[in-house]
């Protein structure tokens, strides 16, 4: 396997009570790229994320990260290897300030997290770093606001700051712009482009404009299987994609209206 491939799956599959949500997925993510995973609702994108990060055990196949088979690892250990995921439903610690959300991530890396006999102001040593991360995502004015009280777009930004605190090698973002207004979408898009420097991003995204702007490579998933692959031009010209994906999206837009 080549040096510049960071993540690879082989015949990855997941069966829920006889229903194959994901089957025979061979995914290849190149180091330093932004790779988008797209497909209609229920295609199995979130399930693939859960399989990659071991939040669900695969029914078949294997996951190779950085040349190493990680199929048998526990989710926390996958994270310790630098593969950090976000969630489709925004994942913050709601009753903690934005600052504390970031500091919890910084604390994990320090090896001091088990110290129950030390005062909590030990965390102050990461204030500067945490403020810098919050500033990076445009949240410096909200450091002391409880995460649960932030607007939806800001929660997503906070999530990215928290993830960045761990300096991930590979970031998995599940629909980072879902449910956002145009302004927030633009801001998050710019943010992802900026944080993708020097690392790899694998993202699930519904907004095709975001995909077109950001993604170097696209994998289209439908009914749990890879339907098409390539850059935006290739994928969007593929008649199979137009039928399966764009067709369903048009229906959806009617349903949403």
């Amino acid at each position, binding site marked *: 396997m080549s040096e510049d491939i960071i993540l690879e799956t082989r015949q990855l599959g997941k069966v829920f009570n006889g229903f194959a949500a994901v089957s025979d997925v061979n995914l290849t993510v190149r180091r330093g790229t932004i790779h988008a995973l797209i497909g209609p609702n229920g295609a199995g994108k979130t399930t693939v994320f859960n399989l990659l990060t071991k939040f669900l055990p695969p029914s078949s196949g294997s996951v190779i990260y950085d040349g190493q088979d990680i199929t048998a690892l526990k989710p926390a250990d996958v994270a310790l290897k630098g593969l950090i995921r976000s969630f489709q439903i925004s*994942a*913050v610690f709601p009753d903690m*300030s934005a600052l504390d959300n970031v500091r919890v*991530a910084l*604390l*994990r890396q320090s090896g001091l997290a088990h110290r129950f006999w030390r005062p*909590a102001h030990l965390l102050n040593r990461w204030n500067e770093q945490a403020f810098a991360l919050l500033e990076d995502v445009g949240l410096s004015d909200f450091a*002391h606001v*409880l995460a649960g009280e932030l607007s939806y777009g800001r929660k997503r930004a906070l999530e990215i700051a928290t993830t960045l605190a761990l300096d991930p090698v590979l970031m998995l973002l599940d629909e980072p712009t879902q449910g956002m207004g145009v302004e927030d979408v633009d801001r998050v898009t710019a943010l992802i482009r900026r944080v993708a420097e020097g690392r790899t991003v694998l993202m699930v995204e519904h907004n095709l404009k975001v995909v077109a702007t950001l993604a170097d490579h696209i994998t289209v998933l439908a009914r749990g299987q890879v339907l098409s692959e390539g850059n935006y031009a290739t994928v969007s010209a593929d008649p199979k994609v137009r039928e399966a994906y764009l067709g369903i999206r048009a229906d959806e837009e009617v349903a949403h209206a």
Partner: protein
Amino acid sequence: METLASPSASRLEKRVNHPFVSYLPWLVAAVVCLAAPFLIYPVFVMELLCFALFAAAFNLLLGFGGLLSFGHACFFGGAAYLCGHALKVWGLTPELGIVLATLGAGVLGVLIGMVAIRRQGIYFAMVTLALAQIVFFSCLQLPQTGGEDGLQGIPRGMLFGFIDLSAEVMVAGSKIPLAMYLFVLTLCFGGYWLIWRTVHSPFGVVLKAIRENEPRAISLGYRVDAYKLTAFVLSAMLSGLAGATKALVVGLASLTDVSWHMSGEVVLMTLLGGMGTLLGPVVGAVTVVSLHHELSALGSWVTVTIGVIFVVCVMAFRRGIVGEIAYRMKRSF
């Protein structure tokens, strides 16, 4: 001054950063505890202290770790037996007996914790209950525990080999077991301080994060089971400390201490006082133990009466006594 941007934070900082305000509760508690044995029967005060520590230790797991154990009596009662045996049969000095019993509760905590931690919610409660019942039946069968009679006549002995804990002295016109009282006060305050410290530590912050969003904590690389196990073992050891001290105070370790009634009682104390608050379990323990004491004339109706009081309390203020007061005060700010 409150800015629009950070309404809750500035208020929080103002309260926490004032040194006097953070020491005040400890000061009040010390004064109350030092005055108490002059006003109330000292042995009863010491018993209250032990149960307050037990409930606070239980709350560390339930309120701050988010885990409902239904078997905490096995740590409390198990340590009581071990301490009693160490003092009575092996002739250990009281401080060594208590250290040994606390460590014993810790070992038991590791064993039970490792099995139970992997289960969630009600299954966790059931596993702890089942394992605690094994401890109960062991205590019933073992010849050393005295079976139905319990382990009686546990001597208080000589602290560090030279301070007689059974001695009583006249202070301001009352006869008080001064050395014993101060010893118990030190242990209970020490234990309570450790709980307070744990809640306000880096570890406490991680526990909070796990409670608020476990999948996110995992995705940040926290091995959450290890943190839960640490909380479980700490809680078990502090419950053991409470049980061992109680055995020394009343000179008795009995099946009551290790039975599932006791496990239920500590749940009740914590919920009644307010789980997840530091003071709640103390208030709950004092309330429940005092009620038992006051209502003891009712015989077996005590349980029913306390049960009714509990139900009424839970319906009227589900945050518990202290939780409800704290909530009302916060809202009126």
